[in-house]
């Protein structure tokens, strides 16, 4: 992990005893107390802490919900209503878990957007970024399977539509797609068997995510945090110790975000969901519109924008897998978009495209919606495959400050900051 001198001084007899045997407190102290954080990081850097909070919240509420939930086709819907009506504070737990999933995605989208804007994926943070993309994929899988569990109409039909996507492989090898879909379903249609296995995986994957988050933080603490300038920490005055500075900022941002979370939990628990999911799953009746949860809408729009089913599926999956390659697709010399006058415009164009795709994903695929979905889908891919490599080479970045300290205090500024108690060594 990041090399800086430890200021950990065990005081109690037990701490000294433990330190000589398993220096875990020393490690925690080094990583989470006097770890040097750039002094100029803004509030977008508090999203990592937020995400950890929501991961823990989802697991904690989920474990209790699982004590009252029955993962069978006959009982799933009834058991969720039992939780809402009969379990003590069951309504609260269920609202927290359902709204928590949305908040988790809101935070992760801000987190990813920050990484894209400030070039946090560029060397030496490629592995850190890739682990992040894998976590994101697992989050999506977990959320998708979690959404099936209430076994409402939207749960059932979303599972039917999405698992059916694999049948498009039939157009490459006849029969392959159908076999895969039947294997996923555990039968010839979505049924209680499918529900039970999704529940099992929905309980498993969050713990896989916990492990990967550990790796993500490890990789982060090796490379050090990026910051709005994209410059590395060079001197002691460029950084502040994580505790209390970054911690105070993180906790403040968390409390504000939790305010938003609570607003939805107590006043708008169903706002982010779909009314059809209060109707018990019925394989014989298809809802008029089948739409996924809001956080999947952009990918759903991409899927439906492509007229060919197999190509649509490929486009949808590659829209996320593409993120794995952007450390090498981005050819720019500077990290932060702040100093990239041309790319800046393209970045916001990309953000607008994703939001527009989200809107279009909620609309029926007809009329002008299809045309717009195609245009924005085209830009989504062009952004990564054409804009990133070309603009990175052709544009002239504006001058960078010489150091993080200079970016905060201006040229005349001299190091008056507190500095990390132990200066990070230059790597």
């Amino acid at each position, binding site marked *: 992990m990041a090399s800086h001198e430890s200021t950990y001084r065990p005081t109690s007899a037990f701490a000294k005893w433990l330190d000589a045997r398993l220096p875990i407190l020393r490690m925690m102290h080094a990583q989470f107390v006097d770890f040097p954080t750039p002094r100029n990081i803004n509030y977008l850097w508090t999203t990592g802490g937020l995400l950890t909070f929501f991961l823990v919240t989802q697991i904690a509420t989920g474990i209790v919900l699982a004590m009252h939930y029955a993962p069978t086709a006959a009982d799933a819907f009834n058991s969720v209503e039992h939780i809402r009506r009969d379990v003590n504070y069951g*309504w609260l737990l269920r609202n927290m878990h359902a709204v928590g999933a949305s908040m988790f995605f809101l935070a992760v989208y801000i987190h990813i957007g920050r990484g894209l804007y400030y070039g946090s994926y560029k060397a030496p943070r490629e592995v850190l970024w890739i682990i992040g993309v894998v976590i994101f994929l697992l989050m999506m899988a977990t959320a998708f399977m979690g959404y099936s569990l209430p076994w409402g109409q939207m749960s059932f039909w979303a599972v039917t539509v999405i698992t059916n996507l694999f049948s498009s492989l039939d157009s490459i090898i006849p029969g392959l797609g159908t076999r895969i879909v039947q294997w996923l379903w555990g039968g010839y249609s979505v049924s209680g068997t499918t529900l039970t296995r999704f529940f099992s995986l929905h309980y498993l994957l969050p713990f896989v995510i916990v492990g990967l988050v550990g790796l993500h933080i490890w990789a982060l603490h090796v490379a050090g945090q990026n910051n709005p300038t994209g410059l590395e920490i060079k001197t002691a005055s460029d950084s502040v110790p994580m505790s209390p500075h970054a911690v105070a900022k993180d906790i403040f941002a968390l409390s504000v975000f939790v305010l938003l979370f609570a607003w939805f939990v107590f*006043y708008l628990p169903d706002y982010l969901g*779909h*009314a059809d999911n209060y109707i018990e799953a019925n394989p014989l009746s298809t809802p008029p519109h089948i739409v996924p949860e809001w956080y999947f809408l952009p990918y759903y729009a991409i899927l439906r924008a492509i007229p060919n089913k197999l190509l649509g599926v490929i486009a949808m999956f590659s829209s996320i897998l593409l993120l794995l390659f952007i450390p090498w697709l981005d050819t720019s010399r500077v990290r932060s978009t702040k100093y990239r006058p041309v790319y800046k415009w393209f970045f916001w164009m990309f953000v607008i495209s994703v939001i527009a795709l989200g809107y279009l994903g909620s609309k*029926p695929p007809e009329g002008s919606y299809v045309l717009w979905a195609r245009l924005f889908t085209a830009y989504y891919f062009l952004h990564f495959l054409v804009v990133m490599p070309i603009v990175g080479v052709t544009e002239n970045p504006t001058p960078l400050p010489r150091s993080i300290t200079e970016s905060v205090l201006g040229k005349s500024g001299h190091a008056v900051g507190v500095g990390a108690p132990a200066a990070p060594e230059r790597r």
Partner: protein
Amino acid sequence: MIRNIRARTAAMLLAAALPASAGVAWAASEAVHIDRQKWSFGGLFGKFDDAQLQRGFKVYTEVCARCHGIKRLQFRNLVQPGGPGFPEAAVKSLAANNYQVDDAPDDEGKIKKRPAILADSFPPPYPNEQAARFAQNGALPPDLSLITKARSADTGAPFYRVPDMMLRDILTGYQEGGADYVYAYLRGFADPPADVKLAEFMNYNKVFPGHQTAMANPFLAGDGLVKYDDGTPETVDNYARDVVAFLSWAADPSLEERKRMGLLVLLYIAITAILLGLAKRRIWRTVH
């Protein structure tokens, strides 16, 4: 006889196909505008009006319950806080005198009926789906336990109005789309326009997707159909409003507790956030 069965089969097929065809009509045409109503349980400080829930329960039992069940509601819910606030003794005698439920099998394995108790759910009007469809010309009257949650009111707003309308709904805590829809549906029965040809056993409704619904106007008899004993005017509009309020409670019996607790939680977090913000400022004072 045979003719009769054939007609019934045709109607059943039609009913089975209806959700799909109605969906197509909905997707292709503009969504019907649903007016927003003022509900006592809406907004951040919303509370149910006990008298209204009691009237709504009366409308439900006298009008709706003939075809629609409300199986997720138990008699004990009627005496719980945050509900209609009926006296316990009254609900006990209501359950015992007016409702029969299946008893546990006796020594011979036969299932007999017994009077309902507080812990029982409301018994359904039909023993199963087939019986319901047989009695209803092939249509299935949905259970009403969750009906106001299972419906929504599409604003049909153009894309440039979406952000500000979303923001308004989020800030005001608007969750009554389902109630607004069910109210509009109950008030939406009318004679069909000249160019609309209704299918057999179908009724015209202004807000139902596709405008043809198997349900007939429940308040066709007009004002005075249900007697109110608290002096509230016995109008169809009041029947619709009161029963929707009752159904909204049935779908969300913890609403009052939720909103009350929400206020405290938000206040607590807001104060904590301010203190944490001040602490953060103090800690960072030496840095910028």
